[in-house]
């Protein structure tokens, strides 16, 4: 189970840090100072009191093997870095995209951190089977069809004149033949246009786009 880096690290613990990398993916492991021997004892099935010298070596090899496998490289190949100081907060903290774990067996209280790139590489969301991959909002709406209307202001006329209109009458307007018309979507103007034609159809040539 993942936990926050602060609660995983605790305070005042003397930790030995190891780091493995594959491109941008990083795995960090922190072993408590006395953890190597305890780990070796568990791996070898020895009693806790046993001070068999090979315990520590076995533990180091086991950790190196674990980290190599986590980075999908061949065990024994690829350098496992020994860090002389704790990594920066950017490599550990959850809000930087890192995920931390506490390992209990056979690595007593060892801490394991993987960064966001490691998660993206080895635990893609779409393979989790729980959530579908997300798509951009613009691309999601890109194929939505909208109706655009073209209108042209012809001016204003009095209510009296409007009531006097009759079929067959030619209404002379204030608008010039080269007047700017408006292309709108849902009554919101999106572009200024001039009248044009395209084969037998009316067409519009865009003169200006209206910023929203």
């Amino acid at each position, binding site marked *: 189970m993942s936990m926050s880096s602060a609660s995983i690290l605790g305070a005042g613990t003397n930790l030995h840090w190891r780091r493995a990398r594959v491109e941008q993916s990083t795995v960090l492991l922190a072993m408590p100072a006395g953890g190597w021997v305890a780990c070796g004892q568990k791996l070898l099935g020895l009693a806790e009191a046993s001070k068999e010298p090979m315990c520590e070596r076995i533990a180091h090899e086991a950790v190196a093997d674990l980290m190599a496998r986590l980075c999908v490289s061949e065990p024994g190949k690829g350098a496992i870095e020994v860090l002389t100081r704790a990594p920066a907060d950017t490599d550990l903290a959850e809000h930087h995209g890192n995920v931390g774990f506490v390992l209990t067996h056979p690595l007593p209280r060892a801490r394991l951190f993987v960064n966001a790139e490691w998660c993206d590489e080895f635990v893609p969301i779409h393979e989790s089977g729980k959530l579908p991959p997300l798509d951009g909002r613009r691309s999601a709406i*890109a194929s939505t069809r909208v109706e655009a209307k073209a*209108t042209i202001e012809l001016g204003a006329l009095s209510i009296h004149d409007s009531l006097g209109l009759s079929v*067959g009458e030619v209404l002379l*307007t204030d608008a*010039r*033949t080269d007047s700017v*018309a408006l292309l709108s979507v849902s009554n919101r103007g999106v572009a200024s246009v001039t009248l044009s034609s395209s084969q037998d159809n009316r067409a519009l040539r865009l003169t200006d786009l209206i910023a929203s």
Partner: protein
Amino acid sequence: MAGEAVNAKIGSATKDLHLVGHVRVSLVAELGQTEMTVDELFKLSKQDVVTLNETLDAPVTLLLNGKPIARGALLAVDENLGVRITELL
């Protein structure tokens, strides 16, 4: 009596219209429409030509105060636009 009441109503309506007859209202012609995707809309740029569904001689709809009240043929009268009214309620 009933006839007098109707005449009074008509007189009232006429009087009301005379009161507001000078008020000017906007006249807009709806030239036509087209359908496009949001993607196409976002990609529009200056000088692009958008073809409408209407043919060149299709009637335009006249909107008075935003309401469609008539249809007509759009024509040029010298340098101005004119509309020959073809349909009116």
